[in-house]
């Protein structure tokens, strides 16, 4: 393990953590303003720093400040330890799963200016892959960690000594367990096609062939549905169900602990967008852009090639990844402000009777087709 490796990993970690949390905070603003726009309102724009209102961005700071100085209320008969632990448990899996997201190709700081002929992923003295941890069982790791997300919600509900919380956490538990299965199964198709569990290799496959959404369209839809259910957002936000159980499992949270739940949920959207991009939209892949430059092969014009320096290719690919993630976040938010909350039986029916069989069928069909093509 070279010093460079340690420094690079640490730098990626810090970059990522700061990035995610800033993103989470920004998403508060996006969510509010976007919902306002969708509903023909303006949204919160009053907070200001002197003359600057910044389209309501100052609200993020104001909210943060408020959350910090707000009373941290703990119900009298709540389990103090678990009550404090729950928000951490809720936010932990979100942060951890980010670690395996390949947000860019390998970058070699030694040859930034030259044209890279080694391909997107390679090893070198000053090279590092833009991913915090390359894990062999990347996908399984993601699923495993995502599965622990329910623990935070359940503990929060159980420790709060509030029957609404308890109901909320029960709902969360059953919903998450139900959709967990589909979440995994809907990805099996991708795994079969890509032939790997390593996320960076999945991207690589899409880089060389075509995007996941093209080969696994059904898988995309199923994964999207299951993943939204996993992140407990509308139309699957029954654990919160403010109209019937007030705010569900985090009724009894205030101040920073509440903020943790809230941020956790928003960051989950970010993670989800990352994974959607990685599995179905080619990750950092930009069409026609290879590691050494642009390869255009148009039927009429024939093959064309423009060489590009290493740094610009990486930058373009990083930008593409960011753009895809933003687009997917936007998609999820639009879904949230479009669909009404489902009824509980509808939720369960959709999970067990529609999505699960469909994902099984998807796996079977994919397997058969792959076998036939071989």
């Amino acid at each position, binding site marked *: 393990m070279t010093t460079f490796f340690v420094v690079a990993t640490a730098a990626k970690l810090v970059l990522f953590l700061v990035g995610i949390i800033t993103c989470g905070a920004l998403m508060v603003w996006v969510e509010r303003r976007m919902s306002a*726009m969708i509903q023909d309102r303006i949204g919160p724009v009053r907070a200001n720093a002197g003359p600057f209102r910044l389209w309501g961005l100052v609200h993020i700071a104001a909210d943060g400040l408020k959350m910090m100085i707000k009373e941290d209320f703990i119900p009298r008969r709540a389990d103090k330890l678990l009550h404090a632990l729950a928000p951490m448990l809720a936010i932990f899996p979100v942060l951890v799963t980010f670690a395996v997201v390949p947000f860019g190709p390998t970058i070699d700081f030694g040859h930034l200016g030259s044209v890279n002929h080694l391909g997107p992923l390679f090893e070198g003295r000053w090279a590092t892959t833009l991913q915090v941890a390359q894990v062999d069982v990347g996908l399984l790791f993601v699923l495993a960690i995502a599965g622990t997300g329910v623990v935070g919600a359940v503990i929060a509900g159980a420790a709060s000594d509030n029957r609404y919380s308890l109901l909320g956490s029960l709902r969360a538990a059953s919903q998450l367990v139900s959709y967990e299965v589909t979440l995994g199964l809907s990805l099996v198709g991708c795994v079969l096609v890509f032939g790997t569990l390593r996320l960076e290799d999945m991207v690589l496959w899409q880089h060389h062939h075509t995007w996941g959404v093209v080969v696994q369209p059904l898988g995309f839809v199923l994964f999207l549905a299951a993943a939204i259910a996993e992140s407990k957002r509308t139309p699957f936000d029954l654990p919160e169900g403010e109209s019937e159980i007030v705010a569900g499992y985090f009724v009894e949270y205030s101040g920073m602990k509440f903020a943790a739940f809230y941020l956790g949920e928003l960051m989950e959207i970010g993670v989800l967008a990352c994974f959607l991009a990685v599995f179905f939209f080619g990750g950092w892949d930009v069409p026609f852009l290879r590691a050494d430059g642009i390869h255009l092969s148009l039927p009429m014009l024939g093959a064309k090639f423009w060489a590009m320096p290493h740094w610009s290719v990486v930058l373009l690919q990083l930008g593409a990844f960011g753009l895809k993630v933003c687009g997917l976040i936007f998609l999820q938010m639009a879904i949230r*402000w*479009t669909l009404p909350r489902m009824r509980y039986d509808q939720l369960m029916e959709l999970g067990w009777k529609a999505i699960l069989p469909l994902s099984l069928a998807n796996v079977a069909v994919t397997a058969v087709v792959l076998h036939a093509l071989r």
Partner: protein
Amino acid sequence: MPYVVKRPERDIWEQSYIPETVRGMGVTLRHFFRNVIGRRDTVTILYPEVQRPYPPRFRGLHRLTQRDDGSPRCTACMCCQTACPAECIHIVAGSYPDGHPLAFVEKYPAEFWIDELRCVFCGLCVEACPCDAIRMDTGLHARPVEARPHLMYERNLLLSITDAKGDVLTANPRKK
């Protein structure tokens, strides 16, 4: 006889949620983009910078009108107190001492309280007043206050509130 509830028929496309969701998102996004670009559908009025003109019959906070000499028109007849369904008016009558220039009116409100927090702004007090002494033509809202007593409006305050045009007299002058 049992009654059969007709359930709406849904075809397989609707059942699959996908096209419908896409359609719904079409609506959502149309609003979103129309509002982002030029706020075309936005209905929000940025109160208080922008205010809608109130209709002339808008019932705002109360005021007590004054006679030309500045004395309250109110004679403490308690008609408003009687009419008020929210029971938020409290009046204590006083009588002008002998020899007072207004002694012929005899009676005046020594205390006049309106609990604007309890008031339901029905305007029945205005209807009930035989002296045109209480009016709700101030065009004012009950504004937020820091303590409940601040919206317990008292006689002199009520007397000092003007109508929308800044007049403390009655808008409907009649002979005494």
